[in-house]
């Protein structure tokens, strides 16, 4: 075997790793169409679990909450994250990158519990607003990474030219920089929405007793009993987030390496 040849063992190991990554997800999807309460063996095809989902008022309320939080958190964190990305690219500050990346780097549970103490000590009612505020805090970093990567690949002299031609800094940003980094901004927004709608740990600590999002509902469902209704909602959620991420990756190819 030459140094350039790829060993069949390498292929076998890599295929096994891909199977390990995908077989569990495929099983969840397949059993969502299974005509049996037990997620154990294939009985027959049905759409019953999806019909049940559409009539489950708890599920619809949770989906509504997740959507509301996701949209709010992604809009605000996209604005703040874009600002952070631009600031880090242009001014090379010291403190900002630490605050931007730390929430991504530390275990999620730490942010969850510290925000819980924070909100409770301030007598801030736990609910939709506290969850959205928490989500914004961890989404800013992801948006900032994507926007900064986009800026790094951009020709800064275009903005300089606009300034030399008499554009105010605000106008130079609005008419030159922003359109050029827009794919990165949109990719960041989609990413933030996905992260928000998928978040379990930080939501778990900041939601309080009365507020339920989709991941929180899935958690309580699988803690009590496993039914294929969970598979059905999981399949739909996976479809949504994977679609968004593929679009985001198309808009901003560096997304693949920044994670």
């Amino acid at each position, binding site marked *: 075997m030459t140094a350039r040849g790829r060993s069949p063992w390498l292929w076998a190991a890599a295929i096994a790793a891909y199977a390990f990554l995908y077989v569990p997800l495929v099983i969840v999807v397949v059993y969502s169409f299974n005509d049996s309460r037990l997620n154990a063996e294939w009985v027959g095809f049905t759409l019953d679990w999806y019909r049940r989902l559409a009539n489950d008022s708890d599920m619809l309320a949770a989906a509504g909450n997740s959507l509301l939080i996701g949209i709010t958190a992604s809009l605000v964190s996209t604005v703040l994250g874009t600002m952070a990305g631009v600031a880090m690219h242009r001014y090379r500050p010291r403190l900002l990158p630490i605050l931007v990346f730390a929430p991504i780097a530390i275990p999620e549970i730490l942010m969850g519990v510290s925000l819980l103490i924070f909100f409770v000590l301030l007598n801030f009612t736990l609910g939709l607003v506290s969850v959205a505020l928490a989500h*914004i805090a961890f989404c800013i970093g992801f948006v900032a990474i994507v926007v900064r990567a986009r800026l790094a690949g951009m020709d800064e002299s275009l903005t300089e030219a606009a300034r030399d031609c008499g554009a105010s800094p605000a106008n130079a940003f609005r008419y030159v920089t922003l359109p050029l980094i827009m794919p990165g901004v949109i990719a960041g927004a989609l990413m933030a929405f996905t992260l928000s709608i998928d978040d379990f740990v930080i939501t778990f600590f900041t939601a309080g007793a009365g507020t339920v999002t989709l991941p929180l509902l899935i958690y309580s469902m699988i803690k009590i009993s496993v039914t294929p209704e969970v598979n059905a909602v999981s399949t739909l959620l996976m479809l949504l987030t994977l679609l968004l991420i593929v679009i985001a990756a198309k808009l901003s190819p560096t997304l693949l390496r920044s994670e």
Partner: protein
Amino acid sequence: MKPTAKTGRAAPAGRWLVMGPPLLYLVVFFALPALIMVVASFRSPGEFGGLAPLSDETGKLDLNVESYARFFTESVYLQVFVKSAWYATLTTLFCLLLAYPLATLIAQSPKKYRDLLLLLVILPFWSNFLIRVYAWMIILGPNAALARMVNAALGSVGLAPVSLLFSAFAVLTCLVYVHLPFMVLPLYANLEKHDRALLDAAQDLGANAWNRFWRITFPLSLPGVFAGAALVFIPALGIFAIPDILGGPDDTMIGNLIKTQFLETRDWPFGSVLSIVLTVAALVLAGLAAWVARRGARGGVGA
């Protein structure tokens, strides 16, 4: 970058206009809560949970190190930390074993396929975390094919049936599953940059496949290995949902301990101590990994 630096100096007002809002937001909703948690770790637990008043009637501050003392003297908590570190170590090792061939294959693939192969590694990471945990509940469930096969095999040699679910096996399998992409990406980023000429030269000098790997590829890949190890070990150390859902009573990790302190026993000072110990452990390990990776990079290139 010269012209940008010039813009930065020329418009200090613009600088704060751009940097101010995100900075302010993260100070309020990240740094401040973290600071409050540090203070909380020195306060006394409240009579009905939460925190006792910060100062008594005379205005004397009630700050103490009792919660820290409790952590370091009651061995049960240190044991949970050691167990968590052990699970995180095993997770890191298994991730490395699975990720190395995968990253090697992607790095050796033709350029046009690499992005697709990488995307396939990352996509599962973007599906909901709980769904990925739930998938293992199905696979390892008592009625599923895997458990029936294992128990039939055990039964044929006269052993009692085992439960795959709610076990250390389930916790570790899912920990590896969830963190695998974090190991593949930095490894790939490193392996992709290797110069094939080194391997060809080694082969010309008579090194066999194993020697080429062990004496050239692996030492050169150490920075990627350590970066991946940090990205896997740190989140794995702090996880709570996986042992919570898939583990048995013996699989308690730090994350579960923290959750219990905040949501069940409601002893916030002690919960804060556990969180701070976890943070310090994570920071020290991240720093160590960065340091070793830098050293490894130098040593590897020099060797």
